[in-house]
Each structure stands twice: as C-alpha cells, then as structure tokens.
C-alpha cells in the first residue's frame, strides 16, 4: 500500500492464534493479514510481535495505523454465569443479554440459588456474573435471596445487577459490603415480557474493557493496540448487524443469518425482526431481540465432534460422509483429540464436511423459530415460538470448516428451510455468502470508528457461493 494512505489494524486475540487484518481505509480494502500464537499463559505480547512480523513480511513494511482495535476470545473467552427468577422469563432474558454481549455462557440458573448451585458457581469461577430477577415492581424477594447467597460465597468476579430496580440499590450495597464488585444496570425485563438487554450489555462490555482485558493478561501487549473493545463473538455480531443494516445511507444485504462453525461451538447470529409471516400466527414466548446470538455448546468441529455425531445420528452422518459407521467413528475420534488438525485425507475431508453440514443444520434449526398448530374446535390456530427467518435475504458462513472446504455452499445450504419440516422457520431462499478472509470481526470492530469504510469492506469481501439445490442425501440425514 502507498505510504500515506490511512490504515487500520484489526486484531483478534483468539484462543490459539492472534490474528491481524490490515485495512486501507481510503479504498476500504484489505491489504494484508498476519498471524501469531496466542500465548496468553506466558505472554500475549510475544504472539502479537510474531503476528506483526508476519504481517510486515507479507505487506512489506507496516504503515502508521490510524486505528489499532482488538477483540479477544483468549484465555477461555468471556466466561459468564447468569441468574434469574423464572426460567423462561428473567432467567432467559439474562441469558440473552449475556450471549448478546459475546459471552461464553458457562452456567445459567433460575429461581432460588441452592447451596449446591452456589458451590457450582464458585467452581465455575466466571469472569462476570449477571444477576436478574423480577420485573420492576414485581418479585424482589428471590433476587435478594440470591444476592445474599452470592455475597456470602467465595466468588470474586464482578456482579452485574440487572433485576427488579427496587432491589438494585440494596443488593449492590450488600454485595459491596461483602467485598464484591457490584455493577448496577437496568432491569433486563423491566415489564412483563419486555426485554431491555442493552443496559446490561453495556455494563458487561465496560467491565470487559476495564477489567477482564487486564485480568486475562491481554494488556501485556498494550503497546501494540489502542483498545480491546469487545469479546470476539460480539464483534462478529456487530459485523453481522452492519452487513444487514448498512451504514451512512448505504444499504446492507438486508435481514441475514451468520453461521460461525468453530472448533468448540457453533454460533448463529440473526439480524432480523423475526415477526410472523405465516397468516394468522400468534407470537408466543419472550419477544425476540433484533440481533440474536445463540451458541450451541455441543456442536463443534473438534472439541465437540463426537457430540455432533450424537446429535445428528451416527448412521446418517456416515451416509453423508460416504463411509462406514466404524470408519466414521475412527476418524471422528482422531480429529476430536487434535484440536488444530486440518483434514489430511479425502476421508477426513468427507467427515469434516458431514460434521459441518450437520452442525449448520442443527444449530440453525435451534436458532430459528417454529410454528405449532393448535387444534381447536374452530379448526387449526397457529402459534409461533421464536423468530420467523423464512424471508431472510442472506446466510453468511464463517469459520475454518467452511473456508477449508471445497464446497462451502454445500455446507451453508443446510441452513435453509427443509420441506420435510415445514414448522421450522428457517430461511427459504437466501443467497449464500462466505467470509473467506475471516473479516466479520474486523468489520464489527471497524464499525465502531468508521462504519462506512467497514461496510464497504464487508460487502466487497463476503463472497457469494453458488447456491446449489439441496442434495438428495440431505433428506436422509436425521436431525
């Protein structure tokens, strides 16, 4: 790149690699990428140096970056525990808020915490705990009880207090006097069935920036960046929002779904209102956030390869891979133990593809809403749970499993609606895109300072992949 062009450096401190993307802001083009090991345990600065050196050799000299922004999922990600009152109400609202803040949810609790629950939470040792419960003016007794238990226990992490506002001050004082850090935020459910997760998300992000980055040792590389702004999954989510909504008067792709197939989990983000399109359908359950993230902890290409097999059914998966059940098991066992392994043989590639297809199908199936037909004397009535994603314009795939496969469209097509399962509200005819350069996180980061450049960058680097017809083998695979 020419010496005087403005440039940005977007950094992802990942669990195993520190990844860099250098972007020319004038042309909104990627100029180079670099990578180094994420040696958080020893010194993250070493990996950062290696990554910068890698970038430098690739682009021949480092420019003076106008922005150096980072995300992090290093050292286990942002590990959170949520506590609410009713499982389907404030406990669910708290989960949605934590996931929306890019957290890795390690525990979710409802109702009164028992001594056993508290012991579990102590053992989980989360980075942040989100405490909710009660609408404003509603139940305050359970959240006070739970705060009392937490005050008396051994956890040291900050507690975001986001429940019944009448209890917030008292709870914050109680936690503080027990030596805990309490961060009051707005109620995640101020009124019955009204979600308000932004204040809790903002509080979580603040704590992440102010404390977690330090606690995880990422600030040892502070010389090399201006700020670590958010956990990586939140940056991916912000990238998805930008791509869907557009910026500065320029349209994005429209309502979309992002499927992020990782080694440990499969994340799905939808940017869409999800309102019913089925004639006469009545929405049930909690209102859905416009930008929604779900994380499937049992669907991961390596750490959780075995549980993908379980969820999809070993026979169906073996058929999809064109292998015998025994051979499938052998290969899955081999890759599951070798987290960084790229497929080496045709058989391994076939297994990876089958795993990725199953992960996509199951994860999107769980993310999307469903209709349910309620039979009444008058005839059928239709209830909708979750988001209706049938009309989505696009599905964007990201993650190594897609990038390394020769047929990413064949994997992403699994996100589409299945004619055999008409009650699942998955996208019917989306265009399929691949985030081949792993740029979504970078777009999300860049959007915080230069949204228009971030949008141009994102739109020009999401590669359309041929949306071939659903294959026949597809319908034989159980889900």
């Amino acid at each position: 790149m020419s010496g005087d062009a403005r440039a940005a450096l977007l950094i992802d401190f990942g669990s195993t690699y520190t990844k860099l993307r250098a972007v020319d802001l004038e042309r909104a083009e990627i100029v180079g990428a670099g990578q180094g090991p994420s040696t958080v345990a020893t010194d993250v600065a070493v990996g950062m140096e290696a990554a910068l050196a890698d970038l430098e050799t690739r682009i021949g000299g480092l420019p003076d970056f106008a922005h150096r922004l980072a995300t992090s999922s290093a050292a286990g990600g942002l590990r959170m525990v949520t506590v609410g009152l009713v499982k389907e109400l404030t406990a669910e609202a708290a989960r949605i808020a934590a996931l929306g803040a890019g957290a890795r949810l390690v525990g979710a609790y409802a109702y009164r915490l028992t001594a056993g629950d508290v012991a579990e939470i102590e053992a989980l040792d989360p980075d942040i705990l989100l405490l909710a419960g009660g609408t404003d003016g509603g139940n305050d007794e359970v959240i006070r009880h739970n705060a009392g238990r937490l005050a008396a226990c051994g956890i040291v992490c900050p507690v975001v207090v986001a429940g019944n506002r009448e209890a917030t001050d008292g709870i914050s004082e109680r936690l503080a006097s027990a030596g805990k850090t309490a961060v009051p935020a707005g109620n995640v459910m101020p009124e019955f069935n009204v979600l308000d997760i932004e204040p809790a998300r903002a509080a979580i992000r603040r704590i992440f920036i102010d404390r977690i980055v330090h606690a995880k040792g990422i600030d040892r590389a502070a010389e090399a960046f201006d700020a670590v702004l958010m956990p990586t999954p939140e940056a991916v989510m912000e990238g998805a929002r930008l791509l869907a909504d557009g910026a500065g008067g320029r349209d994005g792709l429209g309502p979309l779904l992002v499927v992020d197939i990782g080694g440990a989990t499969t994340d799905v983000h939808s940017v869409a209102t999800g309102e019913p399109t089925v004639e006469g359908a009545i929405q049930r359950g909690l209102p859905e956030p416009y930008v929604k993230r779900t994380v499937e902890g049992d669907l991961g290409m390596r750490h959780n390869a075995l549980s993908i097999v379980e969820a999809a059914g070993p026979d169906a998966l073996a058929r999809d891979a064109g292998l015998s059940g025994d051979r499938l098991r052998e290969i899955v066992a081999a890759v599951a133990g070798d987290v960084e392994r790229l497929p080496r043989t045709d058989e391994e590639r076939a297994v990876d593809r089958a795993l990725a297809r199953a992960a996509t199908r199951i994860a999107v199936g769980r993310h999307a809403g469903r209709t349910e037909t309620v039979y009444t004397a008058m005839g059928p009535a239709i209830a909708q749970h979750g988001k209706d994603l049938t009309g989505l314009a696009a599905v964007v795939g990201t993650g190594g499993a897609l990038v390394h496969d020769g047929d990413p469209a064949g994997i992403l097509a699994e996100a589409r609606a299945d004619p055999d399962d008409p009650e699942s509200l998955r996208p019917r005819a989306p265009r399929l895109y691949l985030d081949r350069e792993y740029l979504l996180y970078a777009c999300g980061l860049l959007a915080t300072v230069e949204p228009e450049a971030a949008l141009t960058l994102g739109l020009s680097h999401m590669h359309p992949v041929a949306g071939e017809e659903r294959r026949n083998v597809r319908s034989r695979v159980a889900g």
Partner: protein
Amino acid sequence: MRVTGTLDPAERRGITLVTGVIGSDTHIVGNRILSMALEEAGYAIVALGALTPADEFVKAAIETAADGIMVSSLYGQGELDCRGFRDLCVEAGLDDILLYVGGNLVVGKTPWEVAEKRFLDMGFDRAFPPGTRTREVVEALDRDFAAHARGGRTPDS
C-alpha cells in the same frame, strides 16, 4: 377500619393482576375489555392475551409478584383447561394468590350453580357467569383485597 370494602384507585395501584385467555381459546374481546376496565380502575395489569397455557399465567405471576390471576375461558373447554390451576400456583409458591375465572364457563344446559361449584372446587376464589359486567368484577376485587388487608396481609408482602 374499612367497612365498605371498596378501594380507591390509589389503593388499587399497588395491586398487580395477571389476565389472559386460557388454553387454545382465541376469544380475546371480553378479556381485553376486562383488562382495560381493570387498568382504568387503577389496578396494575399484566395482560397475556389469548392462547395462554396455564403455566404461563403462573410464571408471569411469579415474576411480577402478582396479587391475583384473572382467567378467561369462553370456548367451552374451561373445565379441562383450568383443572389443577390452584395446585400449579401452590407448587410455584403462590399459596394465597387470588384466583378468578370468568367468560363462558357453562357448557350446554348445565345450571350456573353447578358450573360455578366445579370451578370453586378447583380452588378458584370466584367464578363469574356469562354477561358479567366489569363493574361487578372491580367490586368483587375491592371487597376481596380489602378483606385480605384486614386479615393482615400486606399487598407487597
């Protein structure tokens, strides 16, 4: 001490009521009218609308610390849908929550007294016949909450 048994709007304001139409019942009109009338009278209303499963009433009441639940059933299956409703509340720790049911609880030629007794036996505090006016409902609520208060139960306990 209160003798009339009626509350003024300021006293009603601290009282939360959950309303909804139970089961697969889509008759929303009467429930809406009732919800609006109760709100106008000063009660805090959490309206769940039509097609509401029994457990959703209970969950909403827990989260909002409701003082009463107003169940509507119009389509003739109220008896089935409401069976075990009080037990569900007790199970969830809502032991002394006020439970009313109304709408169209009579099926066929059953006399009202028989239908009413069935619902009272299920643990509802009151059951209301078709054609009940909202004014009558407000009066009944006032009486019951005033009696509760005299009985020593504070509305926000």
